[in-house]
């Protein structure tokens, strides 16, 4: 262990964290607007990875270009999921039911992928995946950097939508106080559907980067969703900024621990850090304090 491998771990962590941040942002957005925990987010990322796989292997479309197809497609998928399943959940037990419903969607996705692709591990290939930037004595794989930049761009777009558009104001209003937003006349159904659409569309991008940097198979969703959930909770449910900070923090911590202590304990520290933070800040870093009455 030396300073340079430590520095590399930090850099890797930040780059990877950025991508996780994007996927986590989608998850926290869905929760904030719908009060729904979308367990299917992990499976959707895997689906996104497979879609990029199909486009690149069978149609020869470049991974990043393929996003022009997959992102809108996933947006539509998200809107469909909201309309078909989430809308029916009665408000009373929304959260508990949403966990079960989205889990069902997740296993259906996993099942379909298994049937089509089998259980073999695959990884997305491209000319730039195996080469790296040589910068300041570090090798930064192209794909990590591109992925990180992609995440930044999409997060920037997300920010723009949320903070600079009329629609975005409606979403943020719903994030803060749903009933008040309804009273003001925000079209809640539309906001919900579109929010889920956005929340799911980021998984297309996240899936592509994930698939390019990891080998995956249809069952890869479990590990992913567990990590994303931890990020979202640590950052504070409903806070996109929180998801960002938490993602970079947790992933970087894990990478650093892997170098400093041992890779074997790194993942454990990842999850343990969630517990530790929650013991001091029960609502996560930027979470809304629970309103006790009403």
């Amino acid at each position, binding site marked *: 262990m030396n300073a340079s491998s430590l520095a590399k771990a930090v850099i890797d962590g930040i780059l990877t964290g950025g991508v996780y941040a994007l996927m986590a942002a989608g998850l926290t957005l869905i929760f904030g607007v719908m009060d729904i925990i979308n367990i299917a987010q992990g499976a959707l990322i895997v689906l996104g990875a497979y879609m990029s796989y199909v486009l690149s292997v069978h149609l020869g479309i470049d991974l990043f270009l393929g996003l022009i197809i997959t992102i809108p497609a996933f947006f539509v998928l998200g809107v469909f999921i909201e309309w078909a399943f989430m809308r029916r959940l009665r408000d009373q037990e929304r959260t508990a039911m949403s966990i079960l419903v989205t889990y069902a969607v997740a296993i259906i996705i996993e099942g379909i992928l298994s049937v089509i692709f089998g259980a073999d591990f695959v990884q997305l290939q491209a000319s730039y995946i195996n080469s790296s930037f040589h910068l300041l004595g570090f090798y930064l794989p192209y794909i990590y950097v591109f992925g990180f930049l992609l995440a930044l761009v999409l997060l920037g777009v997300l920010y723009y939508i949320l903070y600079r558009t009329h629609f975005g104001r409606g979403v943020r209003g719903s994030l803060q106080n749903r009933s008040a937003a309804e009273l003001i006349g925000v079209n809640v159904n539309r906001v919900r559907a579109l929010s889920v659409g956005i929340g799911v569309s980021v998984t297309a991008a996240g899936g592509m980067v994930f698939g390019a940097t990891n080998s995956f198979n249809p069952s890869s969703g479990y590990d992913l969703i567990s990590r994303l959930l931890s990020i979202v909770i640590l950052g504070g449910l409903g806070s996109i900024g929180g998801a960002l900070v938490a993602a970079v923090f947790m992933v970087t911590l894990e990478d650093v621990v892997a170098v400093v202590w041992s890779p074997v304990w790194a993942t454990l520290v990842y999850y343990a850090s969630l517990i530790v933070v929650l013991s001091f800040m029960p609502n996560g870093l930027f979470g809304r304090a629970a309103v006790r*009455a009403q």
Partner: protein
Amino acid sequence: MSTLIEADGVCKSFGGLQALSECSLSVPKGSISGLIGPNGSGKTTLFNVMTGYERPTAGEIRFDGTAITGATPEKVFGLGVGRTFQITRLFFRLTVLENILVATQRHEGWLRSVARRAGSAAEHDRALEMLEFVGLGRLANSPAGNLSYGQRKLLELASLLVADPAVLLLDEPTAGVNPVLIEQLSERIRELNRAGKTFLVVEHNMEFVMGLCHEVTVLHQGRTLVNGTPEEVRANPAVLDAYLGGGDDDDF
């Protein structure tokens, strides 16, 4: 008359929003006190602070002379303070009778509470008695979710009564209720008051408040504006100003 429950210099802020500032209120024992004020004046927030659902940023709540600031809602109820909510809250998936039984909490050991059937015969009798008192006797084993709006309010009240609280804080008990039921409600409150119960009632229905309460406090923008008998309050020009001029965001 001694004070049963009081708020003393209570302040409460939510982020940037100052919901209560130096708010003071005292409820004499055995009285029916009213709490009025335009929307957003902090009435429900004050209730929340008094019953332990929120912690004040400053100030004290006292029950029968003892400070209870920051006590949990369970403890506050155990001391004898019951409250209803602006939007009627019940255990909708339980039956009407079960709703009442939840409140008949006896302090028994954990093992017994697991092994014994919910509610002894005596408790069941008392629960049914209470239901009869509010006229819901025949609906004892309907799911609470099936009740009409007015019936729900009555059930909410009955659930509190069964624990024999010393003081009841009612948050807009007549909202959305038909005039006949309002009259019945008034009667029940007076009956209970004669039997020794103290009331603090938040209301928008002026007739109800003026006709029922011994004294009224007016809240405006988180501050106590005026306090006095209904006639005094009604005549006070500052109160009219508050209602016509004020009323910003909704209560949280």
